[in-house]
């Protein structure tokens, strides 16, 4: 292990567990925050799943697996990412294509591939593969992306996003585009391009509207007027706002969320689990949750900015942005600020793909940080 001498010095006098984590290339603070959020998630999941322990157990197994992946990824040297990035991206594209042929159809959309032992959502993997490839592409030079490189980046973003949108899974597609744009932004995309992009987006909105599926348009309309269809498309958002609102300042208490317990709240173990938290623990609970996410994001950003190379810095910040995007989009959607897009709450929602993907990302950040050069450490 290439633990820097200064790091070794810093470890002296610390507890042995701390030293063990350090020797594994793990960041104790980030790890602690991740464990905290995951544990809180399990507590909420227990009520959301009607007090059924089996759900919590399955989620715990997934988390365990996820943290294993995290530790494994943390051991990977930086050069390896540079090598694997294109292949990982290519594999993701293959999976995204494959999903149309062997994918499982649920509610009119194909998003899952069943490999027998695990069910994988390629869209979730793309959210890690795309920034990795973009960072690889854009970090080869310190210059801001422009010209052919920018064009290539745009193409690399559009390919998986387009495939995901065809599944159809507009929410994930938008997130993939968003994370791609964040990478471009961090790489120094000129403000002129950014302004042009924003204007172009506004101009193309009516066109996009025409190409949307009926249910997608309905979701946006319902987002604007939930009472348009209170028992249909508007039901989710109305019930989730009732759950959040009835939580008040301190909440009804653990296992006392009637909306969730009596199943008025839809998707309460997955996409809408934040509403369960809000109902049972009130504004205080949601505040703590938001602060935990912010702490995770800022810790990753801190680790990223002190990295020695452009690749690590960009990758780290991208992963921070990814976690933030996930968490914010989910909470905003559940509380009625964004249309219902069906994205899980990171580390909390029931479901494996997102947990493993994001924990792997966190592992990469820790690994990169542990292997930064001595010089940069003193910066």
């Amino acid at each position, binding site marked *: 292990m290439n633990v820097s001498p200064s790091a070794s010095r810093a470890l002296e006098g610390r507890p042995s567990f701390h030293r063990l984590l350090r020797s594994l290339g793990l960041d104790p603070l980030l790890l602690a925050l991740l464990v905290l959020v995951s544990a809180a998630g399990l507590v909420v999941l227990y009520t959301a799943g009607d007090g059924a322990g089996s759900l919590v157990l399955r989620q715990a197994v997934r988390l365990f697996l996820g943290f294993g992946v995290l530790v494994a990824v943390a051991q990977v040297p930086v050069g390896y990412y540079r090598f694997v990035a294109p292949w990982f991206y290519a594999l993701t594209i293959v999976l995204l294509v494959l999903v149309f042929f062997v994918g499982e159809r649920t509610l009119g959309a194909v998003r899952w591939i069943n490999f027998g032992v695990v069910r994988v959502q390629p869209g979730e993997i793309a959210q890690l593969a795309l920034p990795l490839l973009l960072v690889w592409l854009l970090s080869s030079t310190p210059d801001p992306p422009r010209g052919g490189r920018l064009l290539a980046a745009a193409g690399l973003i559009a390919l998986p996003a387009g495939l995901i949108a065809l599944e159809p899974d507009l929410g994930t597609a938008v997130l993939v585009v968003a994370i791609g744009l964040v990478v471009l932004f961090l790489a120094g995309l000129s403000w002129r391009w950014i302004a042009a992009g924003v204007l172009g987006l506004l101009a193309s909105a009516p066109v996009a509207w025409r190409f949307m599926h009926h249910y997608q348009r309905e979701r946006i309309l319902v987002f604007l007027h939930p009472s348009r269809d209170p028992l249909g498309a508007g039901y989710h958002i109305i019930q989730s706002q*009732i759950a959040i*609102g009835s939580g008040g300042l301190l909440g009804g208490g653990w296992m006392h969320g009637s*909306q969730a317990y009596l199943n008025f709240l839809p998707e309460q173990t997955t996409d809408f689990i934040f509403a369960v938290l*809000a109902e049972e623990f009130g504004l205080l609970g*949601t505040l703590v949750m938001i602060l935990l996410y912010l702490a995770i994001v800022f810790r990753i950003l801190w680790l990223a900015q002190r990295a020695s190379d452009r690749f690590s810095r960009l990758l780290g910040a991208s992963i921070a942005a990814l976690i933030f995007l996930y968490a914010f989009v989910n909470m905003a959607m559940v509380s009625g600020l964004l249309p219902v897009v069906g994205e899980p709450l990171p580390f909390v929602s029931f479901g494996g793909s997102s947990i493993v993907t994001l924990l792997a990302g966190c592992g990469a950040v820790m690994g990169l940080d542990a292997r930064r050069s001595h010089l940069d450490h003193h910066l």
Partner: protein
Amino acid sequence: MSLRRFAAHRPRTLPEKVRYLRRLAVLTGGMLVAVLILLLQLVRLQILDHTHYHRLAVGNRTRLVPILPPRGIIYDRRGVVLAENIPSYALEIRRDRARDLAGEITGLAHVVRIPKRDRRRFWRLVRVSPPYLPVPLREDLSTADVARLAPHLERFPGARIVARPRRYYPLWRISAHLVGYVGPISARQLSHDPGGLYQADSEVGDAGVEQTFETLLYGIPGYRTIEIDAQGRPIRTLGVRPPTPGASLYLTIDARLQAVASRALGQQAGAVVALNPDTGAVLAMVSHPGYDPNDFVDGVRRRTYEALAHDPFKPLFDRAIAGEYAPASTIKPFISFALLHYGILTPRTTIYCPGTFVIPGTHHIFRDWLPWGHGWTDLKKAITQSVDVFFYRMTFRLGIRRLDHYLPLFGFGRPTGIDLRGERSGVLPSPAWKEATLHRPWYGGDTVMSGIGQGYWLVTPLQLAHATAILAAHGRREVPRILHAIYDPLSGQRIPARARALAPIRLAHPDRWTMIARDMHNVVQSPNGTAHNLSADEPYPIAGKTGTSQVGKYRSDFIHVKLPYRERDNAVFIAFAPVLDPKIAVAVIIEHGGDGGLAAGPIAQKVIDAYLSGYRLP
């Protein structure tokens, strides 16, 4: 630790890192703004609008399940049950337990017969009632049905047998019109239920006392507050508010007398009304033919209803309060009071009565029922022998205006105001009425015919009994009533119903009440009286007056010919007894019964006999 020093060392990387840090700062700023917006939204939902959402959440999960109140019992004045609730077994379906609703219904139909009517009702109720309420599938199961069902219930998780109260009328047809019946509430009634007292499977009073006193009998439903889940399945009971049972009613009628009157009427179509002249209490009120009110509970079968509705004798029609008949000669005692009041005659006025009367200056002949006439006649003889010519001439002299002015005092031409729905007002003939109804002018002949209760006269049996009671009570005018007392099951108090009275009729010579009563006694007592057939040696004197109203064209009654049923005269009889201290006043009308004295008289006598012999007993 100076950036500038590094810039000197590594001029190519430094701008990149600075740019990166700047971008990171912008990104971080963006994130913080986004989180701030999210926090504001959460504060809005959880703090500012908390009360609103909390109320929505409570409304989401709680429902009120009504507990229907037990309906009040109906008794007669002595406590004989006229309408009660008997336990009955019903098969009901709890939809939250049933796995396959249609399958269970089909399966249950193999075990116990479920008529198509019940199935239709079941599916209608399934549509309109919320999922946490059980829905009755089949009511009134026999014990054999219950025994057959019991071992199979395990196969049908949604089905259960419950004991529900069912309305029962032990007197069957004897009290049919009076007590009425309850039936399933109609969609229209349910939509006009502002208090929300009724459920889709409630029963509601549809006729008679059951309908008139519905609000008293029904009570106030209680409710259970239950918690339900999103699928509407009941989870647990949060609280119970018991129902207020309906009040029990004591009616003024005497069930025994009611039975006597009914038996006396026998197979004939008609009505009997007996009143207590002192109080206005209805002692008996029967309309024939009747029907069995028990057929209507839980909904009448189509075939039964069609049969009743198309019966030419109209069994559903309550003749006692809604049947309108010509009073014929029974009107004569009341007209006598008008004649005396306006001084048209005195008790000593005597005129010669040939067999006919002709209005001066015309050629139209009005005939007496006795072709050769009655000779010299005073008021006493005119009433005893029902002398038509006497009343023709006197009423013509009185004039229709004064007749119309005086006879409403006895309650003619307007509803008596009895506490029952569906009372008709009859017709007191008047020029204004004729102009309005028939658009024809009034003729002198119309006045003449009015003098013997024919022409345009129409009265209900109740009106006739009421007028008789006023006469018997020497002008006291008690409004007829059916409600004797209300028993409030909560306080255990028995509240007597209030009697209502109109201002009494005051005569210049009060002795004339007794005079006319004696004249009416003569109708029964005198060998020449038209109801002499009733004059057996009674322990009490009866005052009566016969009436025989022509249904077909005018002809003499004296020549007796067997006519087709529809053309036979209606028999009318009024009576009260004892003459000098009347305890009961009766009116009887027999449709197409023929002679009033022969057909209707004995029925009135039987009722009076039964009442007064019972009256004398302790």
